[in-house]
Structure formats: C-alpha cells, structure tokens
C-alpha cells in the first residue's frame, strides 16, 4: 500500500490487516523491530498475538480447540509509479495455518527468500483432512497461487469458525480490495521482480 512516507506506507499496509483480523474477534497484530519508523529495504515481520495466534473453539457444538496463526514479513520500498508511492510495502513471506486440536488442518506458505527450496505459494494439509488413501501427504507442497490473509480467514470460517460480525463477507471483501487492485502478481512472484517487486 502507498504512503507519502515509509511510516505512512506501513500504516496503510496494516489497516486492512487489522480489518481482516477483526473478523475473527479480539486480537492484536504484533510487530518486531522499529517497524513504526521503518528503514527502507529492511525486512520486518508481524504475527497475531505475539505468535500465539487466535485461540478458538469449534462451532456447531464440536468440541476441541481450533487455533489460527497468521504471520507476514515485509519491506518498505520506493516506488515512483503513479498511485503506488512514493513509498509502499511489499510482502516477502506469509504463513497462515489452522490447527484443530493438535493437528494441522491446513497451512498456506510463501517464503521465496527463506531457507526452503520451495519458493512458490503452496499449501500443506494435515492428518485431520488427509485420508489414509490420499494421494497427497502432509509433506507435499501443492501450489495455490497467492493467498491473501482475507482468503485464509474465509477458509477458517468455512472450516467451522465463527465471527462476531454477521457481515464478515463484506468486511473481508473491503479489506482485501486494495491489495487485489494493486498487487502485481497472482500465481508466483516473477523472479525479476525480487526483492522490490510486489
């Protein structure tokens, strides 16, 4: 998201994240380092609730815990394109997962600059959703295209989660719209766009 200053770009980046996270109930977005006065080009990260995620209970009377974790890494970059700058935030990593009791339901990952060889957006499925006869194992990395935080929250709610808001579809759509408008890649980030491309 664009800002006149790096700090403004961070605030514009965080606002939709706050909107989307609110759909799951009270929580906080926690960031590390001097992210409020960011150095251009330096990588920062945020996670929900100091990394502890959002704790929940299953809906529909199903017992058990269901925890949603969300985290992103990002940088402020200069951008002189009309409407995109002079500064904006570009994401460099995301990690969203839903746990049912002690097993992953799913985990959406993108970490092109991390320590893994898997550099495209992908999903991990866990034992709660994998039949013994499944052709996919928990070690597989099926490609997904770029997943937004809002889309994964829709997955949480479609997986038996609850929202305090009856209009959560509209709230998520509004939060997601600016990102969908300005993002420059959908399936996999072009190699030539690294690291300042979005």
């Amino acid at each position: 998201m664009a800002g006149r200053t790096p700090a403004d770009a961070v605030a514009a980046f965080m606002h939709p994240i706050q909107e989307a996270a609110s759909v799951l109930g009270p929580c906080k977005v926690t960031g590390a380092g001097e992210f409020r006065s960011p150095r251009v080009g330096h990588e920062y990260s945020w996670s929900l609730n100091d990394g502890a995620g959002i704790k929940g209970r299953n809906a529909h009377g199903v017992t058990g815990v269901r925890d949603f974790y969300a985290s992103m890494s990002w940088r402020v970059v200069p951008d002189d394109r009309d409407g995109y700058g002079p500064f904006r935030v570009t994401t460099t990593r995301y990690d969203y997962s839903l746990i049912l009791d002690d097993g992953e339901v799913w985990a959406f990952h993108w970490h092109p600059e991390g320590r893994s060889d898997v550099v495209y957006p992908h999903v991990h499925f866990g034992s709660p959703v994998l039949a013994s006869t499944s052709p996919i194992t928990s070690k597989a990395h099926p490609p997904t295209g770029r997943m937004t935080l809002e889309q994964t929250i829709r997955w949480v709610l479609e997986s038996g989660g609850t929202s305090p808001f009856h209009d959560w579809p509209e709230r998520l759509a509004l939060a997601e719209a600016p990102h969908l408008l300005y993002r420059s890649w959908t399936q996999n980030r072009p190699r030539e766009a690294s690291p300042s491309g979005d």
Partner: protein
Amino acid sequence: MLALDAVAAEATGVPVEDADQENVMAVLDVQARKWLGISGAEFLSAWRAGDYNGGDDAKLGRLVSTALLLS
C-alpha cells in the same frame, strides 16, 4: 502507535503493537516443546545456526514466524 493505525485500531478493535519480547519467548518455548520436543531457547539457537535450512513444514513455519518477532 502510528496515528493512522491508531485510527484503524479504534475502528476495528485490533491494535498494532510492539511484540512483547518476554511473551514471545514464552510462546516460542511452549510451541517448540509441543511441536519439536525441545525448548524455545534450543530451537532459537538451532534455527539461527541454520540447522533448519531447507526445511518446510507447517510446525516449523509457525515456529519461525514466532521467532521472527524476537529482536
């Protein structure tokens, strides 16, 4: 808090805050013990030394996400 995200915090009820380093370390310890059977300090040391390079699974991803909050 940034002025703009203070407005967003008021509107959404979701604040943006500095990660509480002590709390993050406590969370990391719980997670590392639960998912890897080691302490948070052991995980942090091994991760920073590159012991998990090349690895990618859901549990490791969450631990790394928590560890990245530590300054």
